[in-house]
C-alpha cells in the first residue's frame, strides 16, 4: 500500500515512498532516522512525539504520514544550526530542565512553537502551562520548563539568523 509523498523536513525537500498505513512518527524515525521523536503512549496523550507541521505542533504518533504530503515538518534535529543550539534548546540546558531526556525533544518543539507565536506579547505563566499541557514529563517536574519558556519570551531572545 505504498504512495509517494513530497514534504519539506527541516528545510530540505524530500520525496519518500511510504506505506499509507504508517504514522508520520514511523516514517520519520524508521525511514529517515530522526530518532529525537519518541513514541511514548502512542495515543496522543504524552507528547513525546511532538513535531511542528506548518507552524502547528502535533502528535506524530496519531498523524498519518500521507497527511504530511506538501507540508513543512520540523523536528528537533533541525533546531540547532551549524552545531549551535537554538535559543530554546540553550534555555533547557541553562535551566537544567532536562533529566532523563525522553520527553525533552517533544517539549522543546512545543516550547519552540509557543515562543515563536508569542514573542513580544504579555504572557502569563498560566498561559505557558496551558500551552505545554500536552507534554508529559515524569522526572524533572515542570517548573524549570516553564521558566525556559518565560525567559525565551523576554525581549532580546530572538534567534540569531
Amino acid at each position: 500500500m505504498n504512495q509517494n509523498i513530497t514534504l519539506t523536513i527541516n528545510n530540505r525537500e524530500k520525496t519518500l515512498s511510504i506505506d499509507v498505513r504508517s504514522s508520520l512518527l514511523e516514517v520519520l524515525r524508521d525511514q529517515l532516522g530522526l530518532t529525537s521523536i519518541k513514541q511514548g503512549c502512542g495515543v496522543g496523550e504524552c507528547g513525546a512525539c511532538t513535531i511542528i507541521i506548518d507552524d502547528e505542533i502535533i502528535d506524530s504518533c496519531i498523524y498519518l504520514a500521507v497527511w504530511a504530503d506538501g507540508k513543512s515538518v520540523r523536528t528537533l534535529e533541525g533546531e540547532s544550526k551549524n552545531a549551535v543550539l537554538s535559543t530554546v534548546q540553550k534555555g533547557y540546558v541553562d535551566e537544567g530542565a532536562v533529566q532523563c531526556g525522553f520527553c525533552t525533544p517533544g517539549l522543546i518543539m512545543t516550547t519552540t512553537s509557543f515562543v515563536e507565536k508569542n514573542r513580544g506579547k504579555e504572557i502569563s505563566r498560566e498561559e505557558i502551562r496551558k500551552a505545554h499541557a500536552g507534554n508529559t514529563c515524569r522526572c524533572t517536574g515542570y517548573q524549570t520548563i516553564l521558566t525556559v519558556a518565560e525567559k525565551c519570551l523576554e525581549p532580546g531572545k530572538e534567534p540569531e539568523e
Partner: protein
Amino acid sequence: MFPLQRYEKADSIEDAVRLLSDNPEAKVISGGTDVLIRLRDGKKAYNQLVDIHDLDELKICDITADGTIRIGAGISFSEVIASDIIKKHLPHLHKAAETIGGPQIRNIATIGGNICNGVTSADSASPLLASNARLIIQGPDGKREVALSEFYLGPGKVALDQSEILIAFTISKQDYSGYSSDFFKYAMREAMDIATIGCAAACLIDGNQLVDLRLAFGVAAPTPIRCSKAEDAARGETISEALLTKIGDALAEDVNPRTSWRASREFRLHIIRELAERVIKNAIEKAGGTLT
C-alpha cells in the same frame, strides 16, 4: 503501522460520499484523534477508511448574508478558538474548545468528529445544543439538514448513514443574537481529560426578566442533552437567586447521569446542579443582569 485493510483519500465531499457508497465497510477519518486510536487498538470496524482530512470544503467558518453562522465540520479546535466570529457570538463554544485535550490534540481534532463520534462527553456538544445548532449532511441523494438535538440517537449512535458526510454546523441569527452564554467543564485535571460533566447555557434577558434560557449538558445522560424542564421553569421569570434554585429543582427531571469509574451518579447530580447555577449566573451577569 496501523492495521488498515483499505485506505482511500477523498479529494472532495462528493468524492468521499461516492467512496463510502462504493464500500459499505468504509468509515470516515478526519482529524484521526479517535479513529486512529481505535484502529491501533485493533478495532476491525475501522480498518477500511475514507480520508477527508484537510478537505478545503470542510474548512469554512463564516457568517452568511442572513446572519447564519456556518462552522465547517473539518475545522480544528484551534481554528474554532482562533475564530473571531465564534469568540464574539458563541463564547460558550469558544470556551469549550479551549478545554479539549491539549494543544497538539486541538490542532488536529475536528469539531465535526467530536459530534459524529456520538459520545456524551464531547465538549463541543453542549454549547452547540444550547445554540440550536443544525447539521448539514451530504449523502448519495444530496444534502439534508437535521437539528443537533435530533442527531444523537444513543451512546455512540448518531443519525448519520454510513455513506453520509457531515459538512457543517449552522446557527441562525435568532439563536445567537442577543444571547449571552457561558460554559464550564468539570474534570479531574485542567488538561488532557474527559469531562465529568460539561455544561453550557445561553440566556436572553430583558432588564430583570429571563426571557429565554437554553441549558445543555454533556455526560448528564447517555447522550448530550438539552434540559427542557429546567428551561420551561426559567422562561419569562424574574432573575433571582430563588429562580436559580427553581431551575436546579426542575433540572432533576431532565438529567440521568450514570456511575462510572470517573464519578458516581450522585456526585454527578451534585455537579450538574452546581454547574447549572454557576453557568447560568455567569451568562446572566455577562449580559448585564444581576441576581437579586
